[in-house]
């Protein structure tokens, strides 16, 4: 949280500092909208700070985020979010400028959504025995938005790249294709979150192309990719499997049965590539449960009522 606060202009920082520290430290999002009070989301519940953000504050915030140099954010303004030091992501909304029908940039930014990245080291620890058996299994992580897919994926990648002594798992070469800078949270190409030594990250690279680039140039043992869903992603996945690389992938969905209905994922599943499926579910209270299925869709491990994370 400190790293986020340090980036904010003083006028927005001050009202945030008046928030009770226990709320601030558990916050998931900080939303800043022009003309509206600042919103802090804690465990899914909004908490409003009575400070009306002015247009000048928003301008100041943007220039702080860009280090006074908007031209450094061209790509980011096209994609609609900025990754900042610490791996946090700032989503942007405002007036969109088009050029030849594609988004060129966002101007007059009126909403900022600072998603606070919290690496939960060790969340995937209990799942490891089920997805490792002399070697890592091809694994598909299934979960709805905000269930913590990426958090689990990140922790699995961390364990893979550091190795795991209690289970006698050696460190492997892990290639991460991080299209949205979410897994590793890179700034200037350097991961901001904790991984092992044997990690290589292609930051901001389209998944399908990135997977091919990784295979050709970095010879990873394991490829880690977030949010597979389009046709070209599925093709790249097949290529990687045939190149003898283990895959850990996430996809949107509520259950294994539901994912089987998604067009390109269904194709992948029909090839019987994946050996393990991790379903992440989250109930209304924010409690998570993990269900691990084997290649036949049979449950091999359940962990219910897991503690809150994200």
């Amino acid at each position, binding site marked *: 949280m400190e790293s986020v606060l340090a980036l904010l*202009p003083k006028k927005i920082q001050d009202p945030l500092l008046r928030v009770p520290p226990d709320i601030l430290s558990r916050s998931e999002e900080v939303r800043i909208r022009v003309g509206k009070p600042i919103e802090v989301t804690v465990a899914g519940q909004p908490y409003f700070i009575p400070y009306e953000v002015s247009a000048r504050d928003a301008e100041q915030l943007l220039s702080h985020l860009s280090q006074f*140099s*908007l*031209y450094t954010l061209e790509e980011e303004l096209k994609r609609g979010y900025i990754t900042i030091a610490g791996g946090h992501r700032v989503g942007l909304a405002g007036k969109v400028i088009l050029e030849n029908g594609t988004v060129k940039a966002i101007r007059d930014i009126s909403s900022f959504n600072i998603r606070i990245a919290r690496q939960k080291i060790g969340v995937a620890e209990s799942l490891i025995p089920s997805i490792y058996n002399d070697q890592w299994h091809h694994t598909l992580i299934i979960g709805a938005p905000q269930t913590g897919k990426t958090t689990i994926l990140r922790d699995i990648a961390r364990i893979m790249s550091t190795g795991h002594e209690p289970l006698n798992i050696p460190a492997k070469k892990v290639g991460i294709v991080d299209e949205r800078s979410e897994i590793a949270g890179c700034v200037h190409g350097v991961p901001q979150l904790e991984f092992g030594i044997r990690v290589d990250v292609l930051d901001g690279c389209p998944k399908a192309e990135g997977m091919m680039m990784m295979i050709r140039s970095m010879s990873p043992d394991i490829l880690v990719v977030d949010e597979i869903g389009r046709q070209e992603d599925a093709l790249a996945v097949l290529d990687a499997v045939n190149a003898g690389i283990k895959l850990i992938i996430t996809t949107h969905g509520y259950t294994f049965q539901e994912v089987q209905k998604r067009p390109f994922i269904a194709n992948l599943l029909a090839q019987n590539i994946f050996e393990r499926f991790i379903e992440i579910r989250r109930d209304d209270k924010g409690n998570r449960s993990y269900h691990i299925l084997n290649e036949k869709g049979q449950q091999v491990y359940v962990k219910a009522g897991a503690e809150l994370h994200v």
Partner: protein
Amino acid sequence: MFKLLGAAIIIIATTWAGFEAARKLSTRPRQLRQLKVALQSLEAEIMYGHTPLKEAAQKLQKQLPKPLNHLFAAFATRLDQGETTVKEAWEESLTEVWSSLSLKQGEYEILTQFGEMLGKSDKYHQQKQIMLTMAHLEREESEAVDLQGKYEKMMKSLGFLSGLLLIILLM
């Protein structure tokens, strides 16, 4: 004896003043040239390096000779402190170092105008803005070179000769 000593002092003083004026004439085109080099490197930093202004200014500060490096040093420090805008930081640094530069009001206006656009748009627009500023500076430079050619020698002789005139009048 005293008369001679006084005469010598007068000659030295006026000659020195003349040389000083001539030096100002020759440093102005030199500083303009250095400023153009600085803008060129800034352009490269922006276009190819995507370097943020603060880092670019710190690099320029190391590259440039005195006294221009102070301008970029001041600019970088101000950006580092935060709670400002690029425009304000640039203008404040300009006024801070202005007296140590041999540049004229026209150049001041060109440079403040340049600061207004700095960091506020995409890199192509930044490049255009830098080009425009360069063109303005180029014009000022050719004028400065002209003035230097015309008046530099004259200033030197004028200083010495006016001292001589003063002595003759006082004798």
